[in-house]
Each structure stands twice: as structure tokens, then as C-alpha cells.
């Protein structure tokens, strides 16, 4: 978050007072854009704090999806008719938006997938097959989501690569020395989450890339959380792959992005076979289309991609830096309120973190906590957060997790803290 604080200081120097006021983040105006936020749950206003699992959708996305179905829907890249041309143009416009969002160099470096899980599976299957030999090594970390563990285990089992796990510190940061010690001349890929879904801790992406580059290894970032909360510039990071999901960044589910450097994507074999990904097909031989079409076999998630484009426009329109500052304020307030609750233990307390508070209470299991909170309208996640090895590392079976978004408020944090007090009343 330091980067953003610096940005704020720099921008506040050039703003007049009036401009600064006009620029103030109006969370109520943002909330008004999300129809679902006015829902009542069990007689209480919805307090949606499960954003790391999936975020709610602004009207701009809902309208874009509806509008696409009502006015421009047809299959893409096939028909010469009017609607197909329009649908193709919209679908490709969404690709351009995703490219700008990550500051990739070319549109053809953006592959649409079903989500980050498919993005990572694509790299494991395609890059793994083309570039990794038995005995080659991949480094992941203890903090990973299952989606950045299991595809590599499958590659290990099918292809004989070696999986190494970089340690993290007790507060959820990458143990950088431990990480660097894992490199050997066989290390070919580092696959690490840019920001932890379970803890919110942010890993030092630039240092990771530098360490890998120095030893000739490629780098994939699981950017599911980071793409929402942090500035991401894949050229500046110089990573080889970057994956994120649409539904966590206020877009539809069923759409995700894989950024890959052009020279890598061009050299990688297809992931799935089918329509769209070919140049010519005979029964004897098929030649592949160029990236990204090569990796988009079959009819893609057309409308979902258009919806994702609208979500990226929406986030960019409000301003990622301003959103991050707002979320940082809410996270700071939540950290302070929850720290004051008896018997509550926070996980992932490293200073570099964003938008996620993982915790346990000594008097109640996370599932009981979540049930009591739900009856107050407060939605949190309870469980292992698809990161069972991390839970084991932290010595717990599960935690409760409150995760914040651009529409989260201090009042919601108060509702969470009050509901946690009633957990204590029942169980302590």
C-alpha cells in the first residue's frame, strides 16, 4: 500500500482544495451502483464481506450483459452477418480493455479463459508440455490457493516435473531467503500468488521476478486478488504469465484472463482442440491458429467477456488508486476494531496486505462464527479458503475471513464487530 500512499501525497500536492473535495471518494455513490447491496438479510441490511470469494456487480456490468443479449448477440469470429460482426467487435473490444488494464503490449497477449483456474491449467498443460522436461523444477509457495497447487501436481504426476514449496513467515509473507534457496539450475518456473486470497498478504512481485530472471526461470502470477486491489503493470513487472478471474473484479463468472508474453504464447501448443483454434483442418493434419485464438477452442464466453470489459471500465472509471486508498482505510479500521475483541486472533498480519482479514475466535469454530454473523446480515467466508496447506502451516483447520471491496464501509465493519461480540455472548 506504500506505493499508493506515495501517489496520494504526490497528487495532493497538485490538487487545489476544491479539486481535492471533488475528488473525495464517495462510497455511498459507489454503493448506489450495486443493486444487490440494498438487499435485506434476516431482517438486517446486507453486509457483504465475502468479496475475496466473489464480488457483486455494478449496474454498468448488468446493463452491458443485458444489452449484449438484447442487441448484439451472435457467435464470434464466424459469421459475416451484421450481428456476428458486432458481437466479434464487442468481444475483441473487451480483450483490448483487459490488455490496457494489465498494460500488456499487444491484444494477442490476452487469452480469455473461464477463470484464473483455467488460466493456470492452460499454462501447466501447454507451457508444461512444451517447455518442461522430467526433472525440471517449479517453485510455488505455502500461501497458494488450490488452483495454483493442483495443476502443478497434475503436471508432476503426468510429466515428472519436481514441485518445490517456498516457505512463508508466520505473518504470511514470503520467506525470501527460503524462496531463493530453492532455486537450482533445473528451476524453470515460479508460480506464486501476487496477493493471498486467505490472508490478504502481498508478495514482493518485482523481487520475485528479478530472482527468477537472474536464474533463467519464468514467472506466473496468480493475480486473482491483486488485479482488484493493486496496480498491475505486466510490462513493468516483466512477468511471463498473469492470471485473474472476472467475477472477483465485479464482472460475470465464467470469464477469466491469462496474460502471456507473445513470444511464449506463440511457441506454446494448444490447450484444447476444437473450433476457432485452427487454421486448416484435414483428417490428416491440422494447423493451429495464432495466439490467442489457438487457446480459445470452441465458442467462448462471449457475453461474459463483454461484461468483464464493462467491469474493467467501471473500476478504471472510479480509479484503482482511489479504490485502493478507500479499501486501505476500511481495512485499517477493521484491523483496529477486531483487534479489540477478546479472544480474536488475526492471521496474515504482515504490513504489506490489502482488503482481507482472516481470523479465529477462541470460543467458537469459524463455521459457528459465520452462522451467527449471517443472522445479523453479515456475510463472511468460513473454512480453509481453498488453501488447506496454508491452514496446516498456520496450525488451524479453518479461519473466518472478512474481505472488503470498493463498496465496503466503516459502518459494515461496525456491524461485523458487533456481530462478533454476539458470538462471544453465545459461546464464550
Amino acid at each position, binding site marked *: 500500500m506504500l506505493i499508493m500512499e506515495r501517489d496520494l501525497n504526490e497528487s495532493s500536492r497538485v490538487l487545489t482544495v476544491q479539486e481535492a473535495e471533488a475528488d473525495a471518494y464517495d462510497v455511498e455513490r459507489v454503493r448506489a451502483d450495486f443493486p444487490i447491496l440494498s438487499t435485506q438479510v434476516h*431482517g438486517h441490511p446486507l453486509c457483504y464481506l465475502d468479496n475475496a470469494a466473489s464480488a457483486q456487480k455494478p449496474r454498468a456490468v448488468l446493463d452491458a450483459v443485458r444489452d449484449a443479449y438484447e442487441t448484439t448477440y451472435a457467435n464470434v469470429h464466424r459469421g459475416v452477418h451484421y450481428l456476428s460482426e458486432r458481437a466479434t467487435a464487442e468481444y475483441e473490444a473487451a480483450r483490448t480493455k483487459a490488455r490496457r488494464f494489465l498494460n500488456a503490449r499487444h491484444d494477442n497477449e490476452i487469452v480469455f479463459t473461464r477463470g484464473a483456474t483455467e488460466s493456470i491449467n492452460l499454462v501447466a498443460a501447454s507451457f508444461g508440455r512444451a517447455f518442461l522436461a522430467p526433472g525440471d523444477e517449479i517453485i510455488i509457495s505455502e500461501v497458494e490457493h488450490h488452483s495454483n497447487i493442483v495443476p502443478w501436481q497434475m503436471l508432476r504426476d503426468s510429466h515428472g516435473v519436481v514441485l518445490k514449496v517456498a516457505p512463508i513467515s508466520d505473518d504470511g509473507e514470503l520467506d525470501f531467503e527460503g524462496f531463493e534457496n530453492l532455486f537450482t539450475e533445473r528451476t524453470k518456473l515460479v508460480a506464486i500468488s501476487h496477493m493471498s486470497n486467505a490472508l490478504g498478504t502481498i508478495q514482493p512481485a518485482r523481487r520475485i521476478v528479478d530472482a527468477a530472471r537472474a536464474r533463467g526461470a519464468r514467472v506466473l502470477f496468480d493475480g486473482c486478488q491483486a488485479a482488484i486491489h493493486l496496480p498491475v503493470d505486466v510490462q513493468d513487472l516483466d512477468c511471463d504469465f498473469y492470471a485473474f478471474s472476472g467475477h472477483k473484479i465485479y464482472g460475470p463468472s465464467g470469464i477469466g484472463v491469462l496474460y502471456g508474453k507473445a513470444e511464449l504464447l506463440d511457441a506454446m501448443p494448444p490447450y484444447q482442440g476444437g473450433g476457432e483454434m485452427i487454421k486448416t483442418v484435414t483428417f490428416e493434419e491440422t494447423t493451429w491458429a495464432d495466439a490467442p485464438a489457438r487457446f480459445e477452442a470452441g465458442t467462448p464466453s462471449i457475453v461474459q467477456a463483454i461484461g468483464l470489459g464493462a467491469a474493467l471500465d467501471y473500476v478504471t472509471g472510479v480509479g484503482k488508486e482511489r479504490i485502493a486508498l478507500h479499501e486501505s482505510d476500511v481495512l485499517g479500521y477493521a484491523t483496529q476494531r477486531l483487534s479489540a475483541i477478546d479472544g480474536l486472533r488475526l492471521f496474515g498480519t504482515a504490513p504489506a496486505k490489502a482488503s482481507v482479514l482472516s481470523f479465529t475466535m477462541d470460543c467458537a469454530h469459524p463455521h459457528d462464527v459465520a*452462522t451467527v454473523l449471517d443472522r445479523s446480515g453479515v456475510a463472511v467466508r*468460513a*473454512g480453509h479458503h481453498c488453501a488447506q496447506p496454508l491452514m496446516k502451516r498456520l496450525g488451524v*483447520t479453518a479461519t473466518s475471513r472478512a474481505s472488503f471491496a470498493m463498496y465496503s464501509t466503516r459502518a459494515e465493519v461496525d456491524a461485523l464487530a458487533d456481530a462478533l461480540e*454476539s458470538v462471544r455472548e453465545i*459461546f464464550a
Partner: protein
Amino acid sequence: MSDDLRELYQEVILDHGKNPRNLRQPEETTHCAHGHNPLCGDQLEIFLNVGDDGLIKDVTFEGRGCAISVASASLMTEVLQGKTEAQAKALFDNFHDMCAGDEEGETNVVDPEIEDDVDRLQVLSGVRQFPMRVKCATLAWHTMKAAMEGRRAVSTEDED
């Protein structure tokens, strides 16, 4: 606190959740199985000691989980002591219907021998109002049934 929360977390449940009965390794085991709820990561082990006369001499469990799953396991071990396998199966059916059956009151005709136990287990009926928590309540029972049937492991995702 809302009424359905009060109904779910009754004193008896909180008590069994905090001070589970028969939470121990048994001296002798004829049947055991491992139960797993992959949704929350809860795991428990149920141990049965069935005598030559077909009566359950001892039921114990090990593991940890939420208040509902621990209380349910604890209550189960109490009501199953001294029962026949058929009675244990009937209690399973009743309990399952109570937690997850389509309609309340559809439970089968109850053997008078286990009527008191069926009544006792009613304390967990509040879970009906919490569909996401039904599996917490039924985990121990599914595991017990698996143990009886000679299966070593059961997951709540395999059963309805």
C-alpha cells in the same frame, strides 16, 4: 439473538460442544470409520465396540469441528450405548429425516425402545433452518453408519 439461532444453539448443544462426552480412543474396537466434511475440513473418527450379542457396548469418537458437529457426535455416542445395530440404523434414519427430510413429521414409526432417544435428539432439529449446516450435524451419523457397514471412510459429499 434471533429465534432460530437460539433454537440452533440451545444450552444442551453448547454444553456438548464444549464438553463432548466419549471423546476418547476406546479400549476395544470392532468397527471404526473416518468421516470428512471437505466443505469445512472437519474430520472425525467414530469407534464402535459391538459385542457378540449384537449390542453396542461402547461408542467413542475423536476429532474436532464446529459446535454442531461435536455436539451431534457427543449426543450420538450417548444414545447408541447398548443399542442393537438395527436400532442404531433406525436412529440414523430418524435423525437424518429430522435434519434433512422433506417434511417435518414424516419420520418413520418409532420403535418404542428408542422413542426416548429420538426425543433427546430433537435438540438438534433447529439445524433444519440452516441448510448449510445440516452436514455438520449428520457427519458423525454418516460416519457411524459407514463403520457399521464396514466402510473405513466417508465424506459428506458422498452422501445426501
